[in-house]
């Protein structure tokens, strides 16, 4: 009995170490690809044809999807033994601005008026959640529709707004919405990468004591609102 328990513990530890090592190596390779693509896309204007630039842009978008997928799989693996969040004061306008710069079709609208208060969050996990939501909207709509990010203070909370004007069929947004409002503990098996992204995003936001909603915006758009208590 004790031997079996020890063996199971060793196997679980080996499995965790494998996932961590694999994720680390994959992210290292994906970071290299990302930087090389960004270098080509930003440092050589005029030296690429329209077709080459479009191809590199698509490769960059796919690479960003792969980064997101690896992070989500790592999160699911960590979740099995309980995810710990490391909260520290953060300026969410800075966090959203950083995420906006990762994409060529995402714009951040800085808050006007008074500066937002800092809020205690796990910056890496919250950034992962927002990135997942951005990715879901980008994949749910057409590439040219883009995504906008905004943040505001609202009655003891900070609200992040992630929106797309879409061009996606309303039925597609409805499917996303149903996925998002489904059970929090969505099964990893049998769900697509958007559903996985949304399930991870929701879990992270709930870990912060927050809420998240997805609603239609206009005929073909969508608005995701993340509310985090101050």
């Amino acid at each position, binding site marked *: 009995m004790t031997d079996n328990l020890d063996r199971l513990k060793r196997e679980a530890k080996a499995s965790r170490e494998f996932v*961590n090592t694999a*994720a*680390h190596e994959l*992210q*290292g390779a*994906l*970071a*290299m690809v*990302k*930087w*090389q693509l*960004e*270098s080509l896309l*930003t440092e050589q204007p005029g030296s690429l044809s329209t077709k080459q630039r479009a191809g590199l842009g698509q490769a960059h978008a796919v690479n960003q999807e792969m*980064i997101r997928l690896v*992070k989500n799989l*790592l999160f699911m693996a*960590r979740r099995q033994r309980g995810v*710990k969040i*490391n909260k520290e004061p953060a300026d969410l306008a800075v966090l959203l601005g*950083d995420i906006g*710069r*990762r994409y060529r079709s995402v714009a951040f609208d800085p808050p006007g008026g008074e500066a937002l208060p800092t809020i205690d969050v796990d910056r*890496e996990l919250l*950034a992962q959640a927002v990135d997942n939501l951005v990715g879901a909207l980008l994949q749910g709509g057409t590439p040219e529709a883009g995504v906008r990010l905004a943040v505001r203070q609202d009655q003891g909370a900070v609200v992040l707004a992630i929106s797309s004007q879409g061009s996606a069929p309303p039925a597609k947004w409805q499917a996303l919405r149903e996925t998002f409002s489904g059970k929090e503990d969505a099964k990893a098996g049998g769900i697509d990468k958007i559903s996985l992204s949304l399930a991870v995003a929701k879990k992270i936001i709930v870990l912060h004591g927050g809420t998240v909603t997805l609603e239609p915006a206009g005929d073909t758009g969508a608005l995701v609102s993340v509310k985090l208590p101050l």
Partner: protein
Amino acid sequence: MARILIVEDDPQVAGLYRDKLTLAGHEVTVATGGDEGLEKAMTGNADIILLDIVLPDMDGITLLRRLRAADHGRPVPVILLTNTPRPEGLAELEGMYSDYLIKVDLTLDDLVATIEAHTGDTPSP
């Protein structure tokens, strides 16, 4: 112009950092392991250190602890730059490092801007 020490075991990644930072007008030294990194950090005159955590010999966390234990009046800012989620126990290192950055979340332009924000330095023309 800032003097930057990069401690990174992947030669391709180190090469990309070096090229980008050199192009931005900074002076770059590279160490490809923890032992070499600690020696260069202790004997060199870096204004800032970019430190990977997973290294083939001495890991970045141990390097950081040893560097801080030996600091003499001029604590050099250290940016931890990795693809590893924050390890447990990182809170014990509070105050020892200036930033914790995830490589895949960064653009190289972000990296240059972060370094210049920490050193208060602008590249030479």
